[in-house]
């Protein structure tokens, strides 16, 4: 990257590409060529910057200028002003809604200030399709170090000392996992990267694979050396075409450079990596189900033990790690396990990547040190709740996690604290909800997901979750009964105790945590037949304020079931048992006379 005076980094992640970032790259190149500046500035399509809310993003280096909401038409002005004359385009700079002043560069943005980027270190800095850029940022140096300086056992000790725990949800110590696989004797062992990111609302792994695919390959190589495997497999969702493409490019380049194949770096170590595609089954994120799916079968989990480390893919010892876990590995070797263990909380070391989404101002991908509080994440990095509404809950851990409330805002985030609070770290989805979200509906939403995704092998999950869903549905339709809450709780306990795999064992969590934290909302649905958030359609009750109604008849004319009656220029009223609660009247009323209760 040294021959150019300036670099224009354009986000090429899925989010920004959806808003034409590929076109921006093209237009920038055209504009540079037209001004004869192609030799001075280079346009690079990078991985995700994380600030997806205001995408597409263009970052100008070396001055870190951060342009947001860029359109293809802005390309010419960026070149004419910034590249040619060195003047920042004020209009495109990010303006913090709280301070109202444009941030001159990304270092001055609240979104980035508290972040520490380890797993995402290269996302948004390098061209993911160019191995040289990865190497220029110390890529494959960790592999060189491990192959030349450590025995497998010593290398595993380093991982153990770092305190790294699995980022896929379970939080199992990675070094220990590797050690178990290492001690098994077998003619063949496998390293598997679990890139089957199925949590609705989570896109951490995809962004890492799109933005820094080589870091995953390097970590898999290191793992292979440590456990004595020569084959690596990446199990990736077929729904991630861009990530698949970039992995394929990375694998081809690594083979060309002799970093995959036989006798890597002259150390007598052979290793190669292949891709396996998922086909849209959430349960395949569970490692035993994932292995069955890789073998071309239905992705149904099996009983553990035997653990994959003993008998996994094709019956051989298999080590399965999540994408984000692997992304940390090279850095641990380069900067040392003590450095890594110095970040984070007592039981959880390092950082965690979260996909921040929902009713929050700065939707995006963030990486924060373990032990940071939810308040810092939501209000400082996330910029608070959208449209000035009130914070209600934050959901972590996807369908396996729970909803945390205001009282948890100052809890330091780590594996153990989140479990104690009735949720879990999960893979890193963090969905923020405001006062308009009905928590019974949210629980129902997750259960609907689980029912859909349950593989059906064990009865507690297949039947139990369906019954949970039906109970929740009954409550949201206004047919709840007094003992439904006890019933939900008992059934949840049975499912947790008896389900076969992690999917079923955690699926009642959304129900239990909303019951614990929002009991009054359940009670309002069941006893008062009311949805306090006004979301449950069946419990909505439309009425007209007579003092505001002008009798314009707009509502009555638009009511498809003739449920609104009244004389012209007289206050109208709604016949409740005719009303189908479609809300058409509310939309049509120009006098703010219709209310929902």
């Amino acid at each position, binding site marked *: 990257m040294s021959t150019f005076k300036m670099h224009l980094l354009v986000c090429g992640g899925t989010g920004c590409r*959806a808003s034409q970032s590929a076109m921006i790259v093209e237009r920038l190149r055209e504009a540079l060529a037209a001004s004869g500046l192609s030799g001075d500035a280079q346009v690079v399509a990078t991985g995700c910057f994380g600030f997806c809310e205001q995408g597409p993003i263009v970052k100008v280096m070396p001055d870190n200028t951060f342009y947001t909401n860029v359109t293809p038409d802005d390309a010419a002005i960026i070149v004419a002003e910034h590249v040619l004359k060195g003047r920042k385009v004020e209009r495109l700079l990010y303006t913090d809604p709280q301070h109202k002043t444009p941030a001159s560069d990304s270092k001055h943005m609240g979104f980035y200030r508290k972040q520490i980027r380890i797993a995402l270190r290269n996302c948004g800095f390098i061209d993911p399709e160019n191995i040289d850029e990865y190497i220029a940022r110390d890529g494959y140096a960790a592999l060189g170090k491990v192959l030349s300086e450590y025995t497998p056992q010593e290398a595993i000790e380093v991982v153990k000392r770092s305190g790294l725990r699995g980022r896929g949800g379970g939080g199992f110590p990675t070094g220990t996992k590797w050690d178990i696989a290492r001690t098994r004797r077998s003619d063949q062992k496998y390293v598997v990267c679990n890139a089957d990111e199925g949590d609705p609302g989570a896109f951490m792994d995809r962004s890492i694979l799109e933005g820094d695919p080589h870091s995953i390959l390097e970590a898999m190589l290191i793992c292979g050396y440590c456990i004595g495997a020569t084959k690596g497999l990446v199990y990736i969702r077929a729904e991630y075409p861009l990530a698949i493409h970039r992995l394929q490019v990375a694998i081809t380049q690594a083979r060309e450079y002799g970093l995959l194949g036989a006798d890597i770096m002259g150390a007598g170590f052979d290793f190669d990596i292949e891709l396996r595609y998922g086909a849209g089954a959430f349960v395949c994120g569970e490692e035993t189900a994932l292995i069955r799916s890789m073998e071309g079968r*239905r992705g149904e989990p099996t009983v553990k033990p035997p653990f994959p480390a003993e008998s996994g893919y094709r019956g051989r010892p298999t080590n399965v790690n999540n994408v984000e876990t692997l992304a940390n590995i090279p850095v641990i070797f380069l900067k040392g396990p003590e450095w890594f263990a110095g970040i984070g909380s007592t039981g959880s070391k390092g950082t965690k990547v979260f996909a921040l989404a929902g009713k929050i101002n700065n939707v995006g991908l963030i990486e924060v040190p373990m032990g940071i509080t939810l308040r810092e994440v939501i209000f400082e990095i996330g910029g608070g709740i959208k449209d000035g509404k009130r914070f209600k809950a934050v959901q972590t851990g996807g369908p396996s996690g729970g909803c945390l409330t205001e009282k948890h805002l100052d809890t330091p985030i780590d594996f153990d604290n989140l479990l104690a609070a009735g949720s879990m770290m999960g893979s890193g989805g963090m969905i923020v909800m405001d006062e308009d979200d009905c928590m019974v509906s949210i629980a129902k939403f*997750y259960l609907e997901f689980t029912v859909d995704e349950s593989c059906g092998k064990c009865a507690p999950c297949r039947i139990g979750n369906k019954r949970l869903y039906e109970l929740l549905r009954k409550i949201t339709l206004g047919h709840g009964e007094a003992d439904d809450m006890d019933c939900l709780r008992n059934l949840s306990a049975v499912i947790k105790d008896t389900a076969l795999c992690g999917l079923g064992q955690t699926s009642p969590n959304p129900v239990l945590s909303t019951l614990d934290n929002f009991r009054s909302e359940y009670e309002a649905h069941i006893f008062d037949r009311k949805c306090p958030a006004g979301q449950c359609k069946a419990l909505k009750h439309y009425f007209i304020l007579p003092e505001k109604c002008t009798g314009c008849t707009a509502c009555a004319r638009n009511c498809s079931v003739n449920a609104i009656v009244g004389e012209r220029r007289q206050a109208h009223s709604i016949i409740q048992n005719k009303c189908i609660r479609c809300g058409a009247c509310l939309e049509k009323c120009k006098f703010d006379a219709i209310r929902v209760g």
Partner: protein
Amino acid sequence: MNTTDHDEHPTVDGIPERERAELKDCQIQTIKNICHSFRHDEGELINILHKTQESFGYLPPEIQECIARELRIPVAKVYGVVTFYTFFSMQPKGKYPISICLGTACYVRGSEKIVEALKNELGIDIGGITPDGKFSLDCLRCVGACGLAPVMLIGDRVHGRVDPLQIKDILTLYT
């Protein structure tokens, strides 16, 4: 497989019998080639199904039977895998397949309203296809463009921050 008691159009899992066609020789050859490229390895069944669906658009029973013959495995096994994974479809897709994201981020930003609006506009249900074969409607879980929530995909194109009132205008882009 169960046959219902509607005499005129007995169905096999919802697919009218009359639509089941014999495969043409060139189609059988395509399937043979795909199986061959994966060394007829039944461990590669999912990859084979991916490739086959790429070529044919969907995986009707006759194609599944053909794959089973090629790999020398029971049709039930192929059928079991096809129906287990949501990515595989036994129904043809429209010329412009529409998928609405029902991930959590899109859900809390109102994707259900978009589903309703599309159902009304197209007159079809989830999993359905318009009579002219132009649009089909499906849901999926998270495309990872949560910053643009709510999101829907038409073909490969992502439409972000969709408002139910815009549905009509968006659909007119695909004429």
